[in-house]
C-alpha cells in the first residue's frame, strides 16, 4: 500500500510544477504591475517607483523571478507579500482557520441534511414527499450562493435582526459567549455554501440507499431482529464508498465558492485574501494560494484513494492482485 501511495504522490509533482508556471505566466500577462496598481496610474515619484521596483525585484525578467522563487521554495520559503512584507506562509496561515472552519461546517451541514433526506427518499421512492423533496433540492441547487446570501441577509439580519449581517465575531467575555457569537456569524455563510451540495449528496444518497435497500443483507439483518434504525446503520456502512468520492468532488467546489461567500460576509479567509491579492497584484501571495489550493485538490484525490483502501477490502485486495500480477 505504501509504495502505491508514494507513486501516486510523486505523480502530482509535475502537475504542481505546471501549476506554478501557469500562475506565473498568467500573473505576468495581467495588465498593470503591482506598483502601477498601488500608485493609481502615476502618483508616485520616479525615484519611489524605481526604488520599489528594485526592492520588489520587478526589473528582473519573469523567468529569472520564477527561477529564484523556485530555488527559495526548495528551501521551504514561499517569499514575502508585496503589500506588507510579511512572509507569504504567515499571511496564508492567518487566513486559513476561517476558510477551514467555514468549509468544515458546510460539509457537516451538507451531509447532515442530505443523507437523512436521501435515506427518507429511498425508503419511500416515488411518494409525493420524495418527489417534492427532490424538486425542492433542484431548486435550491439553482440558487447561486451570492443571491442566497443577499436573500438570507435581508430576511434574517435586516428584517428580523436575529443574526449579524456580516463580519467576524467579537471576543466575548466568556468562552461560551465567543462560541455563540462565532456560531451566529457563521450560520448564514455556512448555509450559502452548503446550498449547492445538498442536491448532489441527496441524489447520491437516494440512489445508493435504494440499491442497498434491495440487497439481501438487509433482509437478513431485519430477520435477525435488528431494529429499523440499526439496520439502516448497516445500509450506511455499505454505501460509504460513493460518499467518500463525493467528498472529493464537493470540497474543491466549496473552496472555490468560499471566495464569493467570504467576500459577501466579510470573513477574512483565504478566498477573500485570494481576491484582494489578485486585485493588488500581490504575486507571491497569489502563487502561494494557487499552490495551496492545488495541493488541497490533489491531496483530496489521494485521500480518497487511501480511504477506499481502508473502507473497502475488495479494492484493497484488487490493488494487491494487480501489483502481484505486475511483479
Amino acid at each position: 500500500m505504501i509504495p502505491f501511495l508514494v507513486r501516486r504522490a510523486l505523480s502530482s509533482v509535475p502537475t504542481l510544477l505546471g501549476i506554478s508556471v501557469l500562475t506565473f505566466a498568467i500573473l505576468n500577462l495581467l495588465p498593470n504591475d503591482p506598483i502601477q496598481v498601488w500608485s493609481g496610474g502615476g502618483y508616485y515619484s520616479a525615484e519611489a517607483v524605481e526604488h520599489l521596483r528594485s526592492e520588489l525585484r520587478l526589473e528582473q525578467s519573469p523567468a529569472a523571478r520564477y527561477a529564484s522563487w523556485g530555488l527559495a521554495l526548495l528551501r521551504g520559503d514561499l517569499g514575502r507579500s508585496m503589500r506588507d512584507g510579511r512572509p507569504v506562509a504567515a499571511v496564508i496561515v492567518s487566513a486559513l482557520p476561517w476558510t477551514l472552519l467555514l468549509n468544515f461546517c458546510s460539509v457537516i451541514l451538507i451531509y447532515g441534511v442530505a443523507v437523512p433526506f436521501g435515506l427518507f427518499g429511498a425508503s419511500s421512492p416515488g411518494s409525493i414527499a420524495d418527489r417534492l423533496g427532490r424538486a425542492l433540492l433542484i431548486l435550491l441547487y439553482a440558487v447561486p450562493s451570492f443571491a442566497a446570501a443577499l436573500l438570507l441577509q435581508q430576511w434574517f439580519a435586516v428584517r428580523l435582526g436575529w443574526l449579524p449581517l456580516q463580519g467576524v465575531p467579537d471576543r466575548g467575555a466568556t468562552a461560551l459567549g465567543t462560541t455563540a457569537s462565532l456560531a451566529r456569524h457563521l450560520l448564514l455563510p455556512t448555509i450559502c455554501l452548503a446550498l449547492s451540495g445538498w442536491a448532489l449528496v441527496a441524489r447520491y444518497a437516494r440512489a445508493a440507499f435504494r440499491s442497498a435497500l434491495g440487497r439481501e443483507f438487509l433482509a437478513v439483518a431485519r430477520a435477525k431482529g435488528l431494529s429499523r434504525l440499526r439496520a439502516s446503520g448497516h445500509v450506511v456502512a455499505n454505501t460509504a464508498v460513493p460518499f467518500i468520492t463525493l467528498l472529493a468532488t464537493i470540497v474543491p467546489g466549496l473552496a472555490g465558492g468560499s471566495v464569493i461567500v467570504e467576500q459577501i460576509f466579510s470573513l477574512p479567509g483565504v478566498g477573500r485574501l485570494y481576491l484582494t491579492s489578485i486585485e493588488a497584484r500581490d504575486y507571491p501571495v497569489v502563487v502561494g494560494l494557487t499552490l495551496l489550493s492545488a495541493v488541497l485538490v490533489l491531496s483530496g484525490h489521494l485521500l480518497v484513494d487511501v480511504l477506499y483502501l481502508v473502507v473497502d477490502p475488495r479494492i484493497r485486495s484488487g490493488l494487491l492482485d494487480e501489483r502481484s500480477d505486475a511483479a
Partner: protein
Amino acid sequence: MQPESRPAIFVVLATALAGLLAPLLANDRPILARVGGHLTAPALAELPIVGRLFDDPSANLVDWGAAPAPLQTGAPRVLLMPPVPYSYRGIHLDEALRPPSRSHWMGTDALGRDLLARVLHGASLSLLVGFGATALALLIGFCLGALAVMRGGLLDLLIVRVVDVVACFPPFVLALAFMAALGRGGVWPMVAGIGLSRWTTIARYVRGEILRHRGGAVWISARAAGAGGVRLVVRHLLPLLAAPLAVLASFGVANAIVLESGLSFLGFGVSPPAPSWGSILAEARGSLDAAWWPVFFPSAALVIVLSSLCAAAESAAAGESRVTRS
C-alpha cells in the same frame, strides 16, 4: 429530446429570446415614430447586429421622455412604444426605490431605474456569456480530448497534464485572471475567460469516450471505409457523443451563468450601466435595508433559468440512460 424536458428548454429559449429582443421590450425610445415627416424606428437601432440598419440621426436628437409636443406638423410623434416604456439606463432619482406597481412591475432600483427593464436586458448578457463560454469550452475540450487520443504518445501525455493543471485552479480565480489579462469590462473577454477555465471536464470526458471506442466496431468500419482521423472523429464519433455532451453542456451553461453573475456581482463583469443579473444584485446590496424587490427579482430570474437548465440536463441524462439500457 425528452418530452419532460420541453418546458425547461422552453423557459431557457424564451429567456434567450427576451434578452435578444430586450431593446424592443423595454426601452424609453419608441419602436415606431414619425420624425420630420418620415417613419423611424429608434428602439430597433439598439438591436445587436441588425441595429445599424435602423440607425437614424434625426431620431437620435429627439428627447422621447419629454412631454408630447403639441400636434404641429413635423414635430416627433410616437406611434408605438415598447411594452415596458423604460430603458435599463434611464435614471430617475425622484422615482428611486418604488415598490412593484402597475407602472413598474418589478419596482425601481436606488437610481430610479426600472428593474424589469434591467432584468430583461441582463438576460441577454447572462445567456450570451453562458452559451458563448460553453460553446468555447466544448470546442476546446472536444478538440484537445480527440487530439490526445488520435495522436497519442507524448502529445496525449502533455494534454492530460495540462488538463490536470487547469482543473486544479478554482474556476472563479482562473476566469478572473484570464478576463483581466484579456481586457476587463467587455463581453467577449468574459466569454473567453469563462470558456478557457471550464473546458477540462469536457476534454477528460471526450478523451475517455474516444478511448473506449478505439478499436471498436464504429472505429474499424469507418477506417475500413477509408475515413481519415478528422473524418472518423467528426463524422462517426461526434454523433455518438452528442447526447452526453449535450447533458454536460447544459450543466456547463448553468455553471457559466453562475460564474458570470458571480464575477459581475463582485464588480469584475461588464462595465456599467450595462446590467447583468449579478451586477443588479450587487447594486441591490446598498438598499438591503430599504427594499426587497431589487434582491428578489434578479435572484428569481437566475433561479428560474438555472433550475430549468439543470432540469433539462437531468431529464436528458435520464432519457439517455434509458436508451442505453434498452
